[in-house]
């Protein structure tokens, strides 16, 4: 503690009142400054919504809600028709597949880290899984184009086509590895560490007595997990999945790099497509007309709404737990 800190009680009257005044003013100032900072964060949230809607106003008044379902996106001056239909489709498909793959994987990893692995193995693998979340999306996307894409195109996609080719989802393999499938897998890599690290904390918080009770009744290790650990934390895991979904919906860069910026809606996952966020990243710098910029902002409005929905849902489902992607470990 620094020298300026004195104890009011042992000082002569004059100095005592001076310290008391400094204490009162100091407390009020600190309280005020802290409150102002917190209000600033809340105001920022409102300002973000306002500015993004404001930027989209021209496109909103021109296309209205029909923008959401219209599949055409022709930015060049003779046409200037904009619609988010195919982008919403691409966003839904890639995010859905990413969650479908990531949630079981992440829950398995979380069970391993919280229940099965020895403490020493846990202390090594846990941070490594979290490090996966620290890889910048632009690097993951770059890797997705040059390393992962060619691998998919040469090996995984032909294999899936030959085995499951009777489903339109796994159509003929095109000449590049970019497309919805690549984007979905890259998103999976980004979502797994988020869901895994939240789920691991949830599993660790399941009361020990419940698990020991099940063991005493003769349950095997898996029966303890299935009968006690998973049901106790199910809503928290659902909340974690929602947070992962929010991340997948809003990822712009990595998806832009690997999805191939296609405009059409294809049944096959191996074809190109595009998502809301990646279309903004792809076209913003080269946008030529005001209407195109406004339409890209409109995509931002849609992203804002579904992103907020995913996060509010996560907080609401997981309200019994402190579910947040932010933790210091």
């Amino acid at each position: 503690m620094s020298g300026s800190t004195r104890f009011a009680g042992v000082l002569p009257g004059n100095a005592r009142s001076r310290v008391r005044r400094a204490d009162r003013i100091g407390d009020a100032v600190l309280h005020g400054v802290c409150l102002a900072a917190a209000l600033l964060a809340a105001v920022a949230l409102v300002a973000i919504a306002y500015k993004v809607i404001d930027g989209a106003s021209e496109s909103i008044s021109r296309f209205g809600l029909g923008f959401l379902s219209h599949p055409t996106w022709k930015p060049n001056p003779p046409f200037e028709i904009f619609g988010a239909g195919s982008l919403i489709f691409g966003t839904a498909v890639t995010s859905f597949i990413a969650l479908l793959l990531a949630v079981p994987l992440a829950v398995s990893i979380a069970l391993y880290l919280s229940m099965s692995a020895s403490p020493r193995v846990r202390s090594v693998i846990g941070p490594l899984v979290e490090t996966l979340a620290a890889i910048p999306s632009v690097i993951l996307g770059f890797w997705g184009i040059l390393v992962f894409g060619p691998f998919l195109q040469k090996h995984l996609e032909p294999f899936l086509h030959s085995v499951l080719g009777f489903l339109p989802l796994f159509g003929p393999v095109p000449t590049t590895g970019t497309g919805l499938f690549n984007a979905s897998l890259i998103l999976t890599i980004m979502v797994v560490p988020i869901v895994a690290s939240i789920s691991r904390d949830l599993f660790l918080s399941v009361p020990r007595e419940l698990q020991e009770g099940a063991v005493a009744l003769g349950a095997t290790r898996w029966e303890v997990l299935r009968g006690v650990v998973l049901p106790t934390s199910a809503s928290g895991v659902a909340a974690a999945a929602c947070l992962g979904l929010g991340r997948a919906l809003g990822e712009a860069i990595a998806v832009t790099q690997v999805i191939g910026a296609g405009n059409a809606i294809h049944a096959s996952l191996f074809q190109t497509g595009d998502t809301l966020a990646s279309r903004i990243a792809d076209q913003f710098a080269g946008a030529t007309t005001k209407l195109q910029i406004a339409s890209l902002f409109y995509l931002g409005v849609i992203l804002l709404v579904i992103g907020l929905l995913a996060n509010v849902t996560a907080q609401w489902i997981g309200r019994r737990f402190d579910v947040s992607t932010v933790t210091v470990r």
Partner: protein
Amino acid sequence: MTDAFGPLPAVTEPAGSAAQPMLDEQDNLGPVTPGLPDFSGSLTPSGNLRRRQLISGFAGGVQTVAAVLAVAVLAIVVYSVVARGASVLSWHFLTQDPPLIAGEAGGGIAPEIVGTVVIVALATAIAMPLGILIALYLTEFAGRWPASAFKLALDLLNGLPSIVIGLFVFGLLVVGQHQSGFAASVAIAIIMLPLIARATQEVLLLVPASLREAADALGVARWRTVRGVVLPTARGGILTATVLAVARGAGETAPLILLSSLFGNTVSVNPFGNEGLANIPYYIFTSSESAEANGFARAWGAASVLLAFILVASVVARIANSRSTLSR
């Protein structure tokens, strides 16, 4: 059977096996003690129990495979980047300007490194004090209801797609003006703010209540307690939170495409100039889209530099945190 009975599977165990200890992995009781009846025959799992143990072992195997898969992906990505970047990494690469034509060989990424450092430093200078103040408000001043409302606001801010934050700052600082390193810093500060605030709040909550109570008992004013007791105790955790947020902010690309994608080809340190600042994430992004072999090589080099910084920062932050007295 587990489907029907959930967590109480032992109920349907056949009578013959009921005498067995049912703890998995403990059915082998070692050498039979002389003088006691030989139970080893009946202690071998049979029938239903063996099936349940097989299922349990299989589930354990699946979990291990999933964990190994995640670590393998990390190793493959890091190896791909470093192996491809190593060929261009040199002192020249770190200190020279990139060539004017992307297809040319040679050159470096000095402007990008300097620009990223400036943008992230400015963003940290904005986000760190604000984040600490918000955390102080949440732990020291706010009542129950305001605290949970502000926490929700921070979590929502944290969940916003970074490209939307880019659009916001574009509308706020770039429309009618021009791109700038400052605009990029503001966007990255908005991304870092909830990370620092929420993580600092967790650390402040770990400061022992007895310290605050001791200060209160001595009649010390709240602000003096915060400055002299709470913040010094939590310093390590706050630094860890900040370093992790910096590692996250340094790799953010989406806002930079909108806010700092036009810039000259030489080193600039002025975030308030009338064009953006060169930066590593945007460099990797444009090189990956340009499809030039030499551009790719430099992009792998730039990716190695960025990845090395981020990995070192996260590892150092974690080690520092695990040594700090306030870690869990």
